[in-house]
């Protein structure tokens, strides 16, 4: 229980912008179990995600990678029937404590989805500005700067700087995904969650996003779900392998370790089988 005398953290109130210098934060997950209604999707997952690093989640489809990722910024409870047990600590603060507002959690922990999903009614500029505008706390004069900075951060500025007022849906798939990344980093989150961000993209766009991830990890803590082993090996510092014992059973974390170790000398046989394709 949170004591009333305890000073309120930045999750329980509006974010103090100036206080954020080192934006990346550590995530500690303890004994996390998530349900869809009565269906237990993942069970008893514990891990640590290091700040300013890239952590990759790999594992077969349906083992709960997306579900677990969505529990990290409380998007899981948006799904009807979505329910979580256990702890997710962001720099020592429990995201699921009763005083915590999920809206603030999501401002702190951003998310990029599998399919690019720019807002269809908005221009490129408005898409990037959406987070600030919709949250209502921004200064008009700063907006253009933030948009430019975010688009540069997403390596998209040069491609769109002449068409900022055109609809975002007119971009290619890879550009749209980078637009979504720009939109996510415009609100200055501390952690960025990416759920198979490249699975709908061609190899060139994929490479562009992978480069981008390499740059972003200087500033953010990044968690990425991927089905592509090479991608996990290329971009991540740590890799977590998820698996489920049978269809219908909840997914579990099998192991998490440095990426090099996972791909060269994993400590669990199932991981090696999965990585080398001898799976199932």
């Amino acid at each position, binding site marked *: 229980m949170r004591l009333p005398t305890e000073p309120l953290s930045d999750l329980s109130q509006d974010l103090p912008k100036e206080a954020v210098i080192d934006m990346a934060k550590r995530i500690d997950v303890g004994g996390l179990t998530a349900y869809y209604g009565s269906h237990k999707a993942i069970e008893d997952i514990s891990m640590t995600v290091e700040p300013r690093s890239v952590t990759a989640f790999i594992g077969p489809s349906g083992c709960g990678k997306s579900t677990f990722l969505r529990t990290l910024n409380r*998007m899981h409870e948006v799904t009807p029937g979505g329910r979580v047990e256990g702890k997710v600590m962001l720099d020592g603060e429990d995201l699921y404590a009763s005083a915590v507002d999920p809206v603030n959690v999501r401002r702190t922990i*951003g998310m990029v989805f599998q399919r690019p*999903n720019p*807002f269809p009614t908005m221009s490129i500029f408005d898409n990037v500005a959406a*987070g600030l505008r*919709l949250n209502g706390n921004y200064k008009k004069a700063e907006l253009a700067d933030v948009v430019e900075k975010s688009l540069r951060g997403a390596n998209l500025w040069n491609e769109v700087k002449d068409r900022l007022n055109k609809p975002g849906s007119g971009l290619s798939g890879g550009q749209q995904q980078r637009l979504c990344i720009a939109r996510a980093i415009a609100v200055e989150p501390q952690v960025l969650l990416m759920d198979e961000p490249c699975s709908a993209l061609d190899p060139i766009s994929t490479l562009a996003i992978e480069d981008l991830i390499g740059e972003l990890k200087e500033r953010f803590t990044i968690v990425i779900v991927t089905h592509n082993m090479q991608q996990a090996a290329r971009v991540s510092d740590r890799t977590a392998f998820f698996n489920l014992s049978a269809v219908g059973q909840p997914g579990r974390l099998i192991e998490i370790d440095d990426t090099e170790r996972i791909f060269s000398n994993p400590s669990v046989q199932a991981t090696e089988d999965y990585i080398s394709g001898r799976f199932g």
Partner: protein
Amino acid sequence: MSHAINTKQPASTLQGARLPKWAPYVIAAGSVAAGCGIGLAGGLDSRIQWGLIAAILFVAVTYLLAAKIEGGRQAKDRIATSVVWVAFLLAVIPLVSLIWETVARGIKVLDTYFLTTSMGVLADTDVGGGIYHALIGTLEQVGLATLMAVPVGLLTAIYLVEYGRGKLAKAVTFFVDVMTGIPSIVAGLFILSFWILILGQGYSGFAGAMALAILMMPVVVRSTEEMLKLVPNELREASLALGVPKWRTILKVVLPTSIGGITTGVMLAVARIAGETAPVLLLVWGNPLINTNPFEGPQASLPLYIYQQYANSAGSPAAYDRAWAAALTLIILIMVLNLVARGIARWKAPKTGR
């Protein structure tokens, strides 16, 4: 010459005998001619009979010819196509003839005098007079009904799609379904007993507008609900993941994405109530004089005007002309509203392309 194309190849398996492109038109023309011929020869009075004979001939001849020349599968294809065409014509003919009739008869007295004059002290059998009072009544009553029904309907739909879970949502859905089926006279009687008989209020445009709002609300709820369901969940999640509160997400992302469809739905609902006569008859009462205040005293409305011109005039041609012209005005009014709605829908629709 060893590479010359062999002209004696076996017939391609991809090609088969086909009826020429113009065949359907010729068959159609032939069937119509035959239908008229048979009708004349057989002394059939009804043009509908002639048309039906032509339609049956068209379908049958197409099928037989295709079966003979093209084979069974194509014949079935042809029969489906020709039945669809015949059905289309059957649906369009009454519609076109209705509009034709209304325009032809209504245009006679429809002019600015007609639009800007009331019936005043004119007897219903006299020549002259106009619909100004009825036009004002319709616009005010429909406007008031829209003001009442749209906010409630929108909010109900938003509740059902975005928040509604469990028993309450099921109950609301059920009642909306029931309301969709309420006959307009029942809505009118409800307001009559509640507003006029129990609360002791008088006849007024507002009383009619309340009944119209009851009729309009379920239509708005239903169409808005469908439109909101079409908004991809990914957009809601994208917004929520940016740390946008749910109500703002609905206001700034969900509604703008679906505003085009919602507008169209509202306009359809407006069109539905603009032609209602029964509740207006019960609650607004009708008034040959101009009454611009919808909250006090009887008013007129276009459908009521049409009905009264027909019913109270003992067959006077002048009154019939006015009724047709008023009907034409009502159709034009609704058409303009629809066009405006389409314009808004297109203007507000999610933008695509570069």
